């Protein structure tokens, strides 16, 4: 690492240096680099801060010279916003696409001074495609991952070492030339160009075959659709058109297929703008463990993982009629599903039923239900098929058998990591030994590629050219936003090189591909160049509509439906919202981001069911409490896992996230938590995310680093009192730790009567709105009695920044949290520090359960600095380090802060964050920066990682307080824009990072004094409230009351 830090910090230069033609052209590099660097010590040729701008200038200059001399115009990339040269201090945005492991988002990449530093959604993308998730937001830091391979690798006696491309190509080509069985194992790839390059490769080596896999398995639904529609695809779901949504364990808001797009659509049906016509979709989630979708659902019907099949079957019998097995389905679910069936029938053509099942028969039943309900063509669109998931478990199993039999001579692996991420990973690792030549494309080492003979290091997608076809009617481009940091080569180039294609230049290759296909399919542009420039600027385009596939109704093999297990305990394995199935474990932002459901980070926790004991405590399974260690036995194998009590978890089930327990995932992913992928069960070759062979012990210890950011989960859940039999506020009873033999069961109202947030059922919305209004009026009356005049005169003039957050739109996905970290240089503190509640997130999403303690509803409340006009933090700071701007911003002056933390104590919203340590190495004591508490180096202290820092935002040092600034740097930028254009500032000029990242549009930022602005309109909405209004801190953030559309009759 040291070596890399010293030599390769501006590796773009090095890369250029190594380009022989470039060296010939200029012949100046080495001497120039020496001239511009401050560091004269050649051995330690470290870049420092001063060098950065010099390098930057040099880099730009060199690129310009190079471009001017010979290298074609391809490096003068088109701009989306400012078609001009790079201006230092001004960000450039490039339209591109986020494609990673079968996920897609149309994005804009913000680059500053040649460095990509932030991902934004692409506004020009068709609805829902230009929105981002936490994973998309976090992808930019993986560009600067210190674990990335610095060049092509070859393996000698099991050890990987650097090699040259020439050497690698020679050896691979000779292996290919003699091979009789070539296989390509890849994560589903939708890129037309990559397919074309692959086709050339296959033409050259006819024994080559492609096997697609996905990080999570979608074989079941794909094969079901193949049977029913004749096409192996997943149709587009339009949750914005669905009035009734029934999901059988499909976490379509969190992880399933296209969660970001689905969330964007889903939220359209959840927002309430008019009380008199209040209407929202009803979302019913059938599941055991709490998923992100389940937490947003109005009703949850609890069934064990093994009951999923018969639950679908029951609905199938009720709607389509006949045949499906229902043995073993619990009576409560049966009764509830009967009511659901009638609601679905009433919403024919306006409903969606989805299932996360990986069994074709079950998915075919779901298809039949949707077909009977008339949902195809209305809410489900088969003409615009989602192509990002194409994996086939059957193909994988066939490949595995071929490998075992020695029929595979050369195996090329792209993106897949089956040794870790496949249930048969161990077998795969064993079978790999029988493959003569194994070549992997990889960014960094993983469990699979370290077993290969060669790693053809590939560039990060932000360094690559590429394209994608996420759906059958959408085409999208990927363009590089920085010169490759390391000696990497694109996968397509490798295929072309190995197939000895005349063209290995990937840029020309893609352009040619598009000229043949997309260009010809349009009429707007006459020349290829004009078309290409436009396409690059837009980043994404819709092609002509695809043809709808009609429902053919393949025969359903009911015998394949999961048999209900009668084991006392079942475990479900869930894809992690942040880490997926482990593919994002190397990303520190995603590790640091608390899991939306259980609010834990840096590890996986066993979610155990919890219930109120009728007296004064919440009792988890086997008496387990948050942060206890328990022994988890699956299939006879024992693990020690930390536990979290999960409200809404079905009794008799536990669940745990996948994606952890990686053994080769760099500094931040290795050795965290446990991997459960080997315990996925099998149903006729389809992997199942649950197991019935599970036991959980009693408490065996206490987790030392229980990195959960929220200890109190509930907001007044109700449970039955043992003594009186009445429903009491279980939550409040459980806050009593010792009652001195008084028998006191909580202080009733102490949690429910809080003014932090408000909830309502859709049916009671008018009464609750009136009640809220009364409360607000009373608070405002009290506040008017204050003896101080306040500064409203000042704040009513000019700009006054404010925010509106629609709790009905917020699904808690966490994209805003990561976007905020990315935009504002929020430090990553690591597991131990999070466990000590030292997390630094400026924006957190509070998650509360309310209602029935056994089957609660959930509310997510994004919480950041409220920029109070009567800010309690401001008047207690002894040195005026935090104060109020004339535009209503609560400002932090880091240089002035001496770190008394009084402001944090006095903040009613607890949003202020203190730099307990020198998390960013911005401190004046260099010795602090290393080996603190056993860590090699704090995350984000590496020079390479620091390239992701936003230069517009101060990096804070040890001992100062920080907090949300309402993205003041963006406000200033917006004001400048307006000023330059000599017009009044509009709300659209300034968008905060959380706002742009939100896939559901829950966050609106703007000038509350601007009567025409978007914010002002939102402030007029009914159901708005201000958190803790009565304490008269005059928060600038409005929330809406959380409304659920729970059908209480389903609970009966």
């Amino acid at each position, binding site marked *: 690492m040291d070596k890399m830090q010293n030599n390769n910090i501006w590796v773009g230069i090095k890369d250029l240096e190594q380009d022989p033609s470039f060296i010939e052209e200029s012949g100046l590099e080495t001497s120039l680099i020496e001239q511009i660097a401050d560091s004269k010590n050649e051995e330690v040729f470290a870049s420092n801060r001063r060098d950065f701008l010099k390098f930057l200038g040099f880099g730009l200059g060199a690129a310009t010279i190079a471009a001017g001399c010979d290298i074609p115009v391809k490096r003068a990339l088109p701009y989306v916003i400012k078609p001009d040269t790079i201006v230092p201090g001004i960000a450039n945005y490039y339209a591109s696409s986020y494609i990673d492991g079968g996920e897609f988002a149309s994005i804009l990449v913000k680059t500053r001074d040649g460095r990509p530093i932030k991902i934004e959604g692409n506004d020009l993308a068709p609805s829902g495609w230009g929105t981002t998730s936490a994973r998309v937001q976090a992808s930019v830091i993986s560009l600067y991952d210190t674990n990335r391979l610095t060049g092509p690798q070859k393996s000698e006696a099991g050890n990987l070492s650097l090699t040259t491309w020439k050497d690698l190509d020679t050896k691979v080509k000779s292996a290919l030339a003699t091979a009789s069985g070539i296989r390509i194992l890849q994560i589903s790839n939708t890129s037309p160009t990559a397919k074309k390059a692959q086709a050339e490769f296959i033409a050259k080596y006819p024994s080559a075959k492609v096997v697609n896999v996905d990080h999570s398995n979608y074989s079941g639904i794909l094969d079901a659709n193949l049977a029913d529609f004749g096409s192996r695809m997943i149709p587009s779901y339009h949750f914005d058109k669905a009035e009734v949504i029934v999901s059988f364990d499909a976490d379509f808001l969190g992880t399933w297929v296209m969660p970001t797009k689905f969330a964007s659509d889903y939220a359209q049906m959840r927002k309430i703008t008019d009380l008199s016509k209040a209407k929202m979709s009803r979302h019913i989630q059938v599941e055991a463990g709490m998923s992100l979708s389940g937490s947003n659902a109005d009703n949850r019907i609890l069934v064990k993982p093994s009951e999923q099949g018969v639950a679908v079957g029951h609905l199938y019998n009720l709607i389509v009629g006949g045949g499906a097995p229902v043995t073993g389905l619990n009576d409560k679910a049966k009764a509830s599903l009967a009511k659901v069936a009638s609601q679905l029938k009433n919403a024919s053509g306006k409903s969606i039923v989805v299932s996360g099942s990986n069994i074709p028969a079950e998915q075919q039943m779901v298809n039949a239900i949707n077909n009977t309900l008339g949902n195809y063509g209305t809410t489900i669109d088969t003409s615009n098929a989602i192509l990002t998931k194409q994996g086939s478990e059957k193909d994988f199993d066939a490949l595995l058998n071929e490998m075992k039999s020695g029929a595979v001579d050369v195996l090329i692996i792209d993106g897949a990591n089956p040794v870790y991420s496949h249930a048969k990973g161990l077998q795969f690792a064993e079978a790999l030994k029988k493959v003569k030549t194994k070549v992997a494309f990889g960014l960094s080492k993983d469990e699979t590629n370290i077993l290969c003979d060669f790693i053809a290091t590939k560039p990060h997608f932000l360094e690559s050219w590429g394209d994608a076809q996420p759906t059958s009617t959408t085409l999208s481009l990927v363009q590089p936003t920085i010169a490759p940091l390391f000696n990497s080569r694109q996968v397509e180039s490798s295929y072309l090189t190995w197939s000895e294609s005349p063209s290995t230049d990937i840029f020309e290759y893609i352009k040619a591909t598009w000229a043949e296909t997309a260009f010809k399919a349009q009429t707007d542009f006459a020349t290829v160049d004009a078309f290409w420039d436009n396409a690059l600027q837009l980043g994404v385009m819709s092609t002509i509509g695809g043809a709808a596939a009609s429902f053919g109704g393949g025969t359903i093999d009911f015998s394949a439906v999961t048999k209900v297990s009668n084991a006392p305990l079942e475990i479900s394995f869930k894809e992690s919202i942040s880490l997926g199935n482990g593919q994002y474990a190397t990303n520190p932002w995603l590790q640091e981001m608390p899991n939306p459901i259980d609010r834990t980070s840096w590890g996986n926790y066993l979610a155990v069911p919890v219930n109120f004991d009728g007296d004064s405590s919440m009792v988890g399974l086997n008496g387990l409490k948050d942060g206890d260690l328990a022994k988890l036995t699956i299939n006879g194998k024992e693990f020690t896992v930390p536990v979290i009590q999960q409200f809404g978890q079905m009794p008799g089930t536990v669940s745990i996230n996948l994606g952890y327990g990686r053994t080769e995932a760099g500094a931040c992913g290795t050795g965290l938590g446990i991997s459960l992928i080997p315990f996925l069960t099998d149903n006729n070759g389809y992997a199942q995310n649950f197991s019935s062979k599970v036991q959980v012990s009693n408490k065996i210890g206490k987790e030392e680093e229980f990195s959960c950011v929220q200890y109190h989960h509930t907001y007044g859940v109700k449970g039955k009192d043992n003594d009186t039999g009445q429903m009491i506020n279980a939550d409040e009873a459980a806050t009593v730790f010792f009652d001195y033999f008084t028998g006191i069961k909580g202080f009733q109202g102490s949690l429910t009567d809080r003014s932090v947030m408000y909830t309502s059922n859709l049916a009671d919305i008018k009464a609750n709105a009136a009640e809220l209004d009364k409360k607000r009026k009373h608070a405002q009356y009290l506040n008017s009695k204050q003896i101080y005049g306040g500064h409203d005169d000042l704040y009513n003039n000019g700009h006054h920044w404010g925010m509106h957050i629609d709790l009905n739109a917020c699904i808690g996905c966490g994209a805003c949290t990561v976007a905020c970290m990315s935009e504002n240089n929020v430090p990553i503190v690591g597991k131990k520090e999070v466990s000590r*509640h030292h997390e630094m997130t400026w924006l957190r999403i509070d998650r509360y359960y309310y209602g029935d303690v056994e089957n609660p509803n959930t509310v997510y409340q994004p919480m950041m600095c409220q920029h109070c006009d009567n800010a309690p933090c401001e008047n207690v700071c002894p*040195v005026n380090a935090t104060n109020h701007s004339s535009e209503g911003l609560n400002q932090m002056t880091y240089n002035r802060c001496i770190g008394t933390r009084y402001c944090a104590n006095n903040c*009613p*919203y607890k949003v202020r964050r203190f730099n307990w*340590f020198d998390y960013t190495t911005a401190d004046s004591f260099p010795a602090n920066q290393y080996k603190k508490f056993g860590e090699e180096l704090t995350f984000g202290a590496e020079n390479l990682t620091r390239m992701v820092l936003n230069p517009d935002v101060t990096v804070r040092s040890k001992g*100062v307080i920080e907090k949300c600034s309402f993205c003041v740097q963006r406000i200033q930028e917006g004001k400048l824009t307006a000023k330059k254009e000599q017009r009044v500032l509009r709300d659209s000029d300034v968008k905060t990072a959380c706002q742009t990242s939100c896939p559901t549009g829950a966050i609106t930022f703007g000038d509350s004094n601007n009567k025409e602005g978007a914010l002002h309109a939102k402030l007029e909405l009914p159901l708005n409230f201000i958190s803790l209004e009565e304490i008269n801190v005059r928060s600038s953030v409005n929330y809406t009351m959380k409304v659920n559309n729970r059908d209480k009759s389903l609970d009966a």
Partner: protein
Amino acid sequence: MSAPVSPMRHVLVTGHKTYHQITEDLISPTEKTPPLAWVIGFIISATLLGVFVFTVGWTIYMGTGTWNLNRTIGWGWDITNFVWWVGIGHAGTLISAILLIFRQKWRTGVNRAAEAMTIFAVICAGQFPLIHMGRIWMAFFIFPYVNTRGPLWPNFNSPLLWDVFAISTYFTVSLLFWYTGLVPDFATVRDRAKGLRKKIYNFLSFGWTGSAKHWQRWESLSLILAGLSTPLVLSVHTIVSFDFATSIIPGWHTTIFPPYFVAGAIFSGFAMVQTLMLVTRKLLKLEDYITIEHIESMNKVILLTGTIVGVAYITELFIAWYSGYVYEQYAFFNRVFGPYWWSYFGMMFCNVLSPQLYWKKSWRRNLKLTFFLSIVINIGMWFERFVIIATTLARDYIPSSWSYYSPSWVEIGIFIGSIGLFFTCYLIFSRVAPVVAVAEIKSILKTSGDQYVGKNAIHHHDHGGKHEEVEASH
């Protein structure tokens, strides 16, 4: 002030002391080789002081993150210790100033040590606002010094800034008061010393000659300083309580805090005086000067202030309920029944219940019980500050942010170390200055010496003694 000697007076000096004997008894500890107990005590104290230096250094070097405070609980043991030490520092001024004005003669036996204790306690207290800062190297920002940044002044609205002025003023006045009292005693030490020691004490006593003019000026200055200090007794802890009372956090935002804090401070201060005096009188054999009468008088103050504090606790609970405000109600409910119930229980037991034993006269005069309870009360008063600070912060408005706090080894080290700092100072003090005010004891000998008053008094008419008393009290 020439009251006739009443047979009803309490005996405050026993052992039929003569003036010379008083000088011998009180000055000689500064002249002899220290006793073994002192040496052992000093080694322990200095070691703890070393712990203090190390843990503070560690905190500054590594960062405040070496403490277990977190995003919810920004103050813990640090500010608890601060308020605790400030509270302890209250007895000195009360004894010196208010009791002087009220002419309580029993103060003379204990005022010197109590004032010293005040100085050292305030020194200890003053450490914490500094070391709890994230950037102590920028601590000078809190002073309103002339600067070229605007100029940029500190925030005069902030109670922390008021603290700066309150504590520094209190420290300055207390130091002056203490030193003023020491001047004639240093002169007495000087008069018995030789060589360099004589020169040093001569310098320290500002060339005191004992002339009538000196005594007159000395008396005037003492009275002026007493007048200045009296409001400080009330103001310092009032302002410390503003750190909490002016905040917006339920459980802190309470108008009862100023009187409640002042009473608590006097309570804990007297308890600490008891702890120190009982040890000092034993070690330095000062039983004739620090008598049971003294102990009992202080126990009465402890009983009174302890009960006041108890009333304050109950009042808080009542007002919380009466407010009808859910956060206020929950804050106090949580204090009593929440995760920190043990600290609330400890506080109630130590501060409210235990002093009630002093309703019985014989228990007030029981030295062992007094010593034990003085420790208990100081623990209780530490708990009180911990209850107010940590339990309040741990669970306030937003349930999602509720947290729990227990100290790290660094915080424990700093607290224990601060006790080392205190005792190191006190032990050095006991070697270089008379721990009982010699001149002041002499001034009450004729009115409170056991040969003059009480049942053992020698019944003869000593007019001369009376005259002397009249003189001394001028």
